[in-house]
């Protein structure tokens, strides 16, 4: 026990006095959390929070213009600017980049819609023999609502906006059509227009994946980036740990340690314990950054749920995987240059594959498949299950088991390699 204590004490003293190492372990992930959370805030934000600038030229004074305008306002997606004008003003304003979207509702659109519907109803009634077969046929010009997108607007977003507008227009068409039919059939011109029931027979409602819907969270920039870069920072301990092992080997301390009483596994256990302790401190500090610093930068607050014990268990397993990886690299590589080059590049690759930079769900299928082999992904998915979905131990057990298996495999590799080398 004294040897284990001595090793932990020695490792912690060395770590604390390594200013550059401390900066990498603590400041780098903190900086990454802040920078990436700020950069990715907009793409992550729900459209509801986006405040997309929209220019609305509503030249119609009737129901159609009002319905569309109300729909746009109620959606809370847009920051709407209303002006009077024509197509050329609409195009000019959007092409200058001042607005993302421009919509023009032409003059008398509502009257035109009503007239078209009246004509349609009369036509249908005539076909059914319910109206005067000699009623006059009028020709109306086509009713068009003009929409202009900025060239940079994403295709998926264009489709979504067009779909919503079409839906509003169709709903109004049907509503007006039914009103007209109703009035004509009842021959009661004074019947209220709201006598026709609303056409929302099918309701689509969103349900939460967790039991307490008010606590339901969506993946936002903070919820993604804080655990992601915390894990990345924890894995960067690989560089310090591998460097420490290689330095001991190069300066003869390893030889001296092996001639001292006690097994080498005690020394390795001491190293793992010290670095694991640092990993846990790192994790705690980074979560605090997410909870208390990021809101001051205009970002949402990190929500970690209520199960602190579960978070500690995830941090512990992540730390074990990171230290295990560090010991493997420190054992297999001969120089600090080799270990730091391989260590940092491999962590960046594992991070990219593991969804640290961007969430895995936006990646192609093949990458999503490969992601499942990254320890950083296992850790991230465990954190997110607890943060976002309020997962229980059974939900994250597969991820934890993989992290622990990775750690144990690392120890097996190191043990086997050392035996082979000292044969």
């Amino acid at each position, binding site marked *: 026990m004294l*040897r284990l204590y*001595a090793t932990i004490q020695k490792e912690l003293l060395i770590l604390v006095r390594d200013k550059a190492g401390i900066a990498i372990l603590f400041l780098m992930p903190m900086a990454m959390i802040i920078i990436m959370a700020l950069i990715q805030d907009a793409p992550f934000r729900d459209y509801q929070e986006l405040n997309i600038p929209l220019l609305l030229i509503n030249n119609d004074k009737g129901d159609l213009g009002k319905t569309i305008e109300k729909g746009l306002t109620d959606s809370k997606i847009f920051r709407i600017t209303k002006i009077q004008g024509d197509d050329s003003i609409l195009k000019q304003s959007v092409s200058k980049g001042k607005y993302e979207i421009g919509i023009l509702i032409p003059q008398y659109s509502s009257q035109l819609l009503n007239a078209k519907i009246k004509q349609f109803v009369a036509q249908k009634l005539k076909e059914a023999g319910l109206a005067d077969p000699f009623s006059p046929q009028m020709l109306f010009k086509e009713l068009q609502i003009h929409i202009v997108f900025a060239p940079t607007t994403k295709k998926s977003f264009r489709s979504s906006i067009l779909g919503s507008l079409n839906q509003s227009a169709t709903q109004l068409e049907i509503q007006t059509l039914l009103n007209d039919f109703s009035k004509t059939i009842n021959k009661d011109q004074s019947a209220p227009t709201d006598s026709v029931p609303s056409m929302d027979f099918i309701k689509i409602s969103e349900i939460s994946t967790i039991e307490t819907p008010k606590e339901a969270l969506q993946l936002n920039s903070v919820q993604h980036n804080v655990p992601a870069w915390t894990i990345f920072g924890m894995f960067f301990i690989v560089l310090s740990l591998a460097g420490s092992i290689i330095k001991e080997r190069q*300066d003869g301390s390893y030889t001296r340690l*092996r001639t*001292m*009483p006690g097994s080498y596994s005690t020394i390795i256990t001491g190293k793992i314990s010290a670095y694991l302790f640092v990993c846990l401190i790192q994790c705690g500090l980074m979560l605090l950054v997410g909870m208390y610093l990021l809101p001051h930068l205009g970002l949402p607050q990190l929500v970690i749920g209520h199960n602190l014990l579960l978070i500690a268990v995830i941090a512990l397993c992540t730390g074990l995987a990171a230290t295990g990886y560090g010991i493997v690299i420190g054992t297999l590589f001969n120089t600090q240059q080799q270990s730091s080059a391989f260590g940092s590049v491999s962590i960046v690759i594992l991070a990219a594959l593991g969804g640290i930079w961007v969430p895995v769900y936006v990646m192609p299928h093949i990458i999503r498949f490969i992601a499942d082999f990254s320890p950083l992904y296992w850790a991230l998915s465990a954190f997110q299950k607890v943060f976002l979905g309020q997962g229980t131990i059974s939900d994250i057990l597969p991820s934890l088991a993989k992290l622990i298996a990775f750690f144990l495999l690392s120890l097996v590799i190191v043990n086997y390699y050392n035996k082979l080398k000292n*044969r």
Partner: protein
Amino acid sequence: MTPDYAIKIDHLSKKYKGAVIPAVNELSLNISRGSIFGLLGPNGAGKTTLISMLCGLIKPSGGRLSILGLTPEKDLEKIKYKIGIVPQEIALYTTLTAYENLRFIGHMYGLKSDRLKNKISECMEIAGLQPFAFKLVQTFSGGMKRRLNLVAGILNDPEILFLDEPTVGVDVQSRNAITEHLKLLNKQGCTIVYTSHLMEEAQNLCTDIALIDNGVIIARGNPDEMINENETANLEQLFLKLTGKKLRD
């Protein structure tokens, strides 16, 4: 009964995997208790391999080995308490203080409390480093580091001390301090096994030497007697006479 020999080596061999010839080849050697034994040889002669086997760092391919009557295969842990090692490299943590380095090593030998403090204080005095006990080792001169490296190897009061070029790269004063202290340790009963390329130092320090080349002992005895027998002026000439002038890698 205390064995007469600190180290007994009987037909010891070590052949590394993939090597054509063994690094140590059927080598037999007894080292008396209380001697200062110099193991000399050119680069690649097999000195480090032999010392590594004596310290239990690598396993022999063949032969038998006894350290203070104990065999490494069975009693490695017991042997570890009885030996000390001073590697050629400065095997110290440079971002720790001298005191912290010795405290760590002391803890590894199971030393603690006042016993450890007293031992550290004693070692600091021997190394002439007491005023620098709480300074980081990275601020030390080469000589100071060497002296600390030496006392780190004797913190556990070893019965056998293995030294691999303990005075390489240090000034004359530090070298003198180190050799004087080795003589003092030897007087106190510590057997010293010493390797060096400094022939003059070996000649002055050692009571017994063995010249090793190609994994076998090519000469053995008291340095002065060997110099006389071979009619050479000093140990360096004897070394060159027996190992040749061909460059070694």
